[in-house]
């Protein structure tokens, strides 16, 4: 007949390394016997005493962990900081671009509105994969006794204090180049598109009828954007004024584009028939441009205000210099 003690000892040793199983079982059994014997001498009956002793020893899985000296956590303090930073960084940079890419591919492929769902689905799946595989890798690292040679921390890694000039020349250059390229494409596609009709004539990507006055306004917003970038560089930071100018610029860009896209007057139908795309993809590209522009501009305007708010908070924060003590 199996006793509670038999079951308890079995439950404990089944998860310790096999080589030491017998000895731990033997010792544990002896200890339990001693403890029960002590209680019997105090007048308890055997059943009560055995239950009390096993309860005192607690969950056998926990005891087994103590015996094997295995880590009692998935990822311990040695790796946690590195793990956390890596996962956050990967989640920040990878799923969204892949989701957008998957959505665009699906849009081109099927030309249906399922592209949005496809993109979100792909992003979620990629995020799950990143979280799972990174966690698994670090959980294994925690359990094998090797030094993975992860970069340590040194004082050189300390972030700079905010100096008020948190806008770099590189950032400004990137933004300016973007704006110039956009303007060049906008103008270039009208006069010299890369698609020709049967007679070698020029077929613009955008509806030629949209130029007056809408696309001129869009061009104007790009010029405004150029000045905003230069102003931000001059001030060394975003201010509420530049953020508001950025809002105006964003509206000047978004309102015409959204107006045209909603009325399907933005893109050139002839261009679409020349490259052999159907009516449906013409509709859907309009929808895609509309959503894309709204999201991008909303993000850009919001980011301007957040940066302005942050830099104003920092510049008004009290100095951390120690005060002289009298």
């Amino acid at each position, binding site marked *: 007949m199996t006793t509670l003690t038999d079951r308890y000892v079995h439950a404990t040793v089944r998860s310790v390394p096999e080589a030491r199983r017998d*000895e*731990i079982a*033997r*010792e*544990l059994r*002896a*200890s339990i*016997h*001693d*403890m029960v014997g*002590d209680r019997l001498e105090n007048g308890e009956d055997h059943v009560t005493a055995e239950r009390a002793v096993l309860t*005192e*020893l*607690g969950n056998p899985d*926990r*005891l087994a962990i*103590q*015996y094997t*000296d295995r880590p009692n956590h998935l990822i311990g303090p040695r790796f946690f900081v590195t793990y956390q930073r890596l996962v956050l960084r990967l989640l920040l940079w990878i799923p969204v671009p892949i989701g957008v890419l998957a959505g665009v591919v699906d849009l081109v492929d099927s030309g249906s509105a399922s592209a949005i769902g496809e993109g979100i689905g792909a992003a979620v799946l990629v995020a799950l994969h990143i979280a799972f595989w990174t966690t698994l890798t670090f959980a294994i690292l925690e359990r094998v006794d090797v030094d993975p040679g992860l970069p340590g921390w040194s004082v050189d890694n300390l972030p700079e204090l905010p100096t008020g000039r948190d806008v770099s020349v590189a950032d400004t250059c990137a933004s300016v180049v973007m704006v110039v390229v956009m303007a060049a494409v906008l103008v270039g596609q009208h006069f010299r598109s890369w698609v020709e009709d049967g007679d070698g004539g020029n077929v613009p990507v955008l509806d030629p009828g949209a130029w007056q006055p809408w696309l001129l306004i869009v061009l104007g917003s790009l010029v405004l954007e150029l000045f905003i970038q230069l102003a931000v560089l001059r001030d060394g930071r975003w201010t509420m004024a530049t953020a508001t100018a950025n809002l105006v610029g964003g509206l000047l860009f978004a309102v015409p584009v959204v107006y045209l896209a909603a009325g399907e007057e933005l893109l050139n139908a002839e261009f679409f028939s020349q490259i052999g795309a159907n009516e449906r993809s013409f509709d859907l590209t309009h929808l895609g441009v509309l959503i894309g522009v709204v999201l991008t501009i909303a993000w850009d305007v919001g980011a301007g205000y957040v940066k302005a708010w942050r830099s104003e908070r920092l510049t008004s924060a009290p100095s951390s210099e120690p005060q002289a003590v009298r």
Partner: protein
Amino acid sequence: MTSDDVLRTHLQELRRGTVVVASLTALKSPGYGYGLLQTLARHGFNVDANTLYPLLRRLEDQGLLTSEWNTEESRPRKIYRTSPAGEKVLALLLDDLDAVGASLASLTEGDPA
């Protein structure tokens, strides 16, 4: 977390290392698991059985304790004894415990360092 929990956590932290010192001291004369548990309890070291038994094995793995099975009695028991290496470590640990006590005393006296 109530203040009772806070206190319990701190006491646990404070006591953790002393169980090793107490076990190495007590096992200078040979003893078995439950016997040691009772001895420690009698002297004010309230250790849980599920902490002490695995600890003895770990100390044995580290060479600080030796063990042998005593089969003379009706039920065999594993008898532990502090090894020479264990005695050396114990001496160092006791010195450190004294040093902690001395440091605390000098802090309390408010030595104008």
